[in-house]
């Protein structure tokens, strides 16, 4: 058992899962926004980045880690709700390009503002968990207290989102307003409020992700911290299906594992090339995602 756990294959799988849950979480936050408002939010990395700076850096002078995490998530909620109200609401029913452009503009503004306030120097976030891998029989196996924390957090978030959508009245209203806004409105659902809630939740999930990513001690927190991660998250969401929360998470983890093997056995400079290849091939095969329930529109 020990020998297997410290083997090259096992550590690639474990490392892949650790990265993959991050891609899955980003994908999940994209799916939440897509399902509620039909918009692919290109600022989905930058909004949580801002919340992380405010919560973990600005408040980091006064409070400990866990309080800061709570503050950051609350700030994330606020940013998500505010964005939907101010920036996104005027865009419903407009051509597809409008929300794309506006959110790209918002991404630019957020990264510039963060760099103007906090500079682009990487910030190190305090973590309560050690990033050093556990050892079994003197050999490391690719899991540390921090990566366990990361995986457990991801699972908790995913379960929480699933419970909310499946088993609560609020979740029912959320799903209803996304699928049939007019009918829901007639039935007394406050559709506008539900749309805002979708963005709020999504940015909250994103903020948890951003905190995990920037606690990663390879790089720390920078204004661009989520740019690359967003690309991988999008690939996971597109492969899994933008309307499928489960699909996007599964896709994220699978892609994480595949890329880990590519990095180990092929060349880590090829990781992004392979990711792009996966995206193109899967979109050619299933344009609406592997797990999508909506039939592709044939023309």
């Amino acid at each position, binding site marked *: 058992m020990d020998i297997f756990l410290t083997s090259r294959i096992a550590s690639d799988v474990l490392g892949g899962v650790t990265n993959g849950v991050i891609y899955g979480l980003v994908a999940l936050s994209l799916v939440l926004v*897509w399902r509620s408002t039909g*918009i*692919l939010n*290109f600022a989905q990395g930058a909004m949580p980045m801002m919340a992380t700076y405010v919560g973990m850096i600005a408040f980091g002078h006064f409070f400990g880690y866990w309080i800061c995490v709570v503050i950051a998530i609350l700030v994330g909620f606020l940013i998500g709700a505010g964005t939907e109200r101010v*920036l996104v609401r*005027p*865009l419903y029913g*407009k*051509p*597809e*390009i*409008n929300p*794309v*452009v*506006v959110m*790209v*503009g*918002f*991404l*630019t*503004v*957020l*990264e*510039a*503002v963060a*760099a*103007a*306030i906090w*500079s682009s120097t990487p910030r190190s976030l305090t973590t309560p968990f050690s990033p050093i891998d556990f050892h079994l029989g003197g050999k490391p196996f690719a899991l540390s207290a921090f990566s366990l924390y990361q995986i457990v957090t991801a699972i908790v978030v995913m379960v929480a989102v699933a419970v909310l959508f499946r088993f609560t009245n609020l979740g029912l209203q959320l799903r209803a307003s996304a699928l049939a806004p007019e009918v829901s409105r007639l039935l007394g659902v406050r559709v506008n409020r539900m749309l805002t809630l979708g963005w709020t939740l999504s940015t909250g999930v994103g903020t948890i992700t951003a905190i995990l990513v920037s606690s990663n001690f390879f790089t720390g927190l920078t204004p661009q911290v989520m*740019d*690359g991660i967003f*690309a991988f998250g*999008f*690939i996971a*969401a*597109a492969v899994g299906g*933008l309307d499928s929360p489960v699909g996007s998470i599964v896709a994220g983890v699978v892609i994480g594992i595949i890329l880990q093997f590519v990095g180990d056995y092929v*060349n880590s*400079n*090829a*990781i*992004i*090339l392979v*990711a*792009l290849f996966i*995206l*193109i091939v899967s*979109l*050619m095969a299933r*344009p*609406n995602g592997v797990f999508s329930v909506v039939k*592709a*529109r044939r*023309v």
Partner: protein
Amino acid sequence: MNRGLSSRRVITTVAAVAAVALSFIVTPSSRDGVALAVLATLTVIGGSVLLSSDLRRAHPVVTRAATSTMAVSVSLVATFFFSSTTNFNLATGAAMAVTLVGLSFLTGVSGQVSLGNGAFMGVGAFAMAIWSNHHSTTPIVVTLLISIVAGALVGLLLGLPATRLRGPYLAGMTLAFAVAFPAILTYFNSWTGGDGGLQLPNAATPPHWLRALYVHGTTSLTSGTLWLTDITLVATGVAFFFMANLFTSRVGRAMRLVRDNEVAAELVGVNLNRARVLAFVVSSSYAALGGALWTFLNNSVTPATYSFALSIVILSVIVIGGIGTIPGALIGGLVYAYSTNVINWITNQTGLNPQGNFASQLNGIIFGGLLIVTMMLAPRGVAGVYYTFRHRRASPGGDVKSPSEETYAEA
């Protein structure tokens, strides 16, 4: 009307003769005189064609050729007088405008969104550098064409999934390509020179035929940068001429129909997939030409230049200029070329520490903000505002035609 036409002919002839005569009288060095005389004559002829409304109606292609010729000639003559910095800015902006007009076509006419045109520029830029390093004697025109073909091929590869993708998926896929692009380049480092990029082998030596035309006279010519500017401007003119025709061609109309009503398009026999892929290929070829011109202007290319940020910049300036229009691309190119100067001016006026955090991020704040405001208030940018204004004046109370419908009238 006849009388008008003949007077126009007289005016044209007199103007052309006078221009040629003047250029020989005032330029002591005969060869520069020839160059200027040719340009002046082209300007006058182009202008006079445009002045005839009959000709404009009867031969739109000739008119567009005249417009391009005149615009290029005027700017070429202007480059003789501008400083080398101004010329370089103009050329950089012109190459950017080529990229922009491709994106304008893709989004405005065919209704697809690309966030990867910075990477397509990079394809052209590197195709140019790689080819020049292996075949340093290839004429510049051929090298530019090769870069365009490279851009078209990569565009085709990425455009194939595009036949099956709706807007946000396509935008996301092009985004993934743009983010991945610098890493892809460094992966093929034996070709692309890795993170260090490539230099052009025969940097800054004008081809023979051009040297023969330009050899004497002005110092700016011999210092070796004016010819770069001029070739870029000519290439831009040619690219815009083709694009103006494409906007109004049958293909362009078919694409607009695909954008507005797929079912109707299918009914009249348009192949939807082919139209979408074609638009994608055109857009990536134009981006590749823009990138190749940048390599040509700078004699070198590095992967870092063609990062995701460039694609965002491209999207911003075309939106500000006016997406879906041809003049919008030109405005966008100018905005691009002079944004740095404007930002510096603002920094100086507001007394910000130019090396401080805030001043260095001002560009992002202003452009990102402009992007949001433009999309909210005037989705067709500066060009769109102009069209709407003109139409209100022309037909008060009447229906405002869709700006994209009549852009060709302008071009």
